[in-house]
């Protein structure tokens, strides 16, 4: 299946009026000094869903979100949120959207409670209610004990939770989360997922970005994959996976040194390359038919490559990504260069 076909998967709502959508964007463009960070993205987010935007470092996720949140000027194209034009009514948009950015945006000089109080009061919540909401949110996010300590002493996870709490004070109907779980430990990450699902149960719509393929898979009702500022595919996680191949053979080699040999063999048997996972000695092989797994295994056995574990599963979004963009997510590599800057 080609990329263009994929792009239509699970498409937008057939002929819905855009006012029925939580987010409707057409041809969004943002240019930074000649570099098109966001290069013509269309996006439709339906009310009540969790929409995931998946892409590697530098794909343009943050830039896109910031344009939709009125934090960056839209260079070309247009966007509507619940039917209100973003460029024309920034003040209205700011009342409808709660933004949790990629980096915590809370005040280092204030305590957690003071932060929530300040943001509440700024948005016209009266004093007693602002106090009550602050206490409620601190409880809900497990921050009661740290409530009256300055943020400077907070861990990354605590900051992230406070940041999300600060976006929920007025209970906005649409919530933007930019990489909500990056840098969180697995347990905190799971809690964050539950919180996000809880928001949707309350009637909110969530637009989140992530670099984690399993996060999009677990959390999102629909996913848009973006790369170099362009949308390369859109659909439910299942649709995307099915599109890439019916199943995937996951191999863990006993000896990581034999990876090149194994790659060679897979290429010979199937005519396509397997995806190397960052874990030493692990290969993911996309299969059109599950039967082909046997051919691969027999060829490996014949060549004397020993395997310590085997499974056949639906392909991961990693493979989806490879199939869609023709290159790997390159997460580790890109992170390295970011840090060197």
């Amino acid at each position: 299946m080609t990329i263009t076909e994929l792009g239509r998967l699970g498409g937008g709502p057939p002929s819905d009026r855009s006012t029925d959508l939580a987010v409707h964007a057409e041809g969004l463009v943002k240019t930074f000094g000649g570099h098109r960070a966001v290069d013509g993205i269309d996006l439709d987010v339906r009310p009540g869903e969790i929409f995931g935007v998946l892409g590697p470092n530098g794909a343009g996720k943050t830039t896109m979100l910031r344009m939709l949140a009125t934090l960056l000027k839209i260079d070309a194209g247009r966007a509507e949120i619940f039917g209100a034009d973003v460029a024309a009514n920034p003040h209205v948009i700011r009342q409808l959207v709660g933004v949790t950015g990629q980096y915590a945006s809370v005040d280092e000089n204030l305590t957690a409670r003071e932060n929530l109080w300040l943001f509440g009061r700024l948005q016209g919540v009266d004093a007693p209610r602002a106090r009550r909401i602050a206490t409620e949110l601190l409880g809900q996010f497990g921050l009661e004990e740290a409530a009256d300590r300055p943020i400077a002493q907070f861990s990354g996870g605590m900051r992230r939770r406070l940041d999300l709490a600060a976006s929920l004070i007025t209970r906005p109907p649409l919530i933007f989360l930019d990489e909500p779980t990056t840098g969180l430990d697995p347990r905190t990450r799971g809690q964050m997922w539950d919180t996000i699902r809880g928001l949707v149960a309350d009637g909110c719509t969530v637009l989140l970005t992530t670099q984690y393929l399993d996060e999009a898979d677990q959390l999102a009702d629909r996913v848009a994959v973006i790369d170099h500022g362009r949308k390369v595919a859109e659909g439910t996680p299942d649709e995307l996976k099915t599109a890439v191949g019916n199943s995937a053979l996951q191999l863990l080699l006993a000896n990581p040194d034999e990876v090149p040999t194994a790659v060679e063999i897979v290429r010979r048997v199937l005519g396509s390359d397997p995806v190397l996972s960052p874990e030493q000695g692990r290969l993911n092989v996309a299969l059109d038919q599950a039967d082909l797994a046997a051919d691969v295994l027999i060829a490996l056995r014949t060549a004397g490559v020993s395997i310590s574990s085997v499974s056949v599963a639906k392909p991961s979004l990693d493979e989806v990504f490879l199939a869609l963009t023709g290159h790997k997510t390159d997460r580790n590599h890109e992170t390295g260069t970011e840090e060197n800057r």
Partner: protein
Amino acid sequence: MSTMITPARETVRAADRVAAARRRVSLRETLGQTLMMAWRALKKMRRNPEQFFDVALQPILFTAMFAFIFGGAIAGDVQSYLPLMIPGILAQTVLTTCMATGTQLREDMEKGVFDRFKSLPIARIAPLAGPMVADLLRYTIAATLTFGMGLVMGYRPGGGAGGVLAAILLAIITGWSLAWVFTWVGTIARSAQAVQGISMMIMFPLTFLSNAFVPIETLPGWLAAFVRINPVSHLVTAARDLANSALVSGEVAWTLLACVIVIAIFAPLSVRSYKRHM
């Protein structure tokens, strides 16, 4: 997926929220938001008291230094230089205090919390004006210390308490107005250091090319021309008249007019360039 939670709270209904959304910020809301921002700035000051060192030290040091350096040369002796000098120091300390506005704003703007301020439905001017309201405290401290130090050194203002208070008030108003220039610099410069550099370049001619420390008559013509239109000169003359003879001269009006002009130009410029930062 999301079946496990029965919402304990009222469901969020997007349509209602869209209908209830306001189109613009009212003047009352703007004032309330500015005061909240001032509250934040005051909290910040209280937790970083080292910010007050320059405000407190400068009037004390400068008063002593200038009196002994220039006193003899300009007025013959220190005692007779004080009535000339103290209002000059007053203008200078207030100006240095307001210079810090730009640098601090810039540092503040680079912090994550400004991202949130930008994403909230609040008046764009509130995050800029709030800290300036809190700065009124700093001007008051600086101005009071200047006169306090003068009194210690033997300055006996002829205008009495009323005259001195009026001079302090005028200095605070002027400082607050001129602070908009530095706020604007804070919003256009690339870094806090750049703000510092540009602010210095604005500050030095304003204070030293004024009649703050040297009588205009001693200056060459071209310099005297600038000194005469410099708003700081008007402030200094007005403050001298107020503090030394309780005289509300036309200079007060000129000073206030200069303040209004500065605000009218630089407040909108600041807001515009702050908005462009997004």
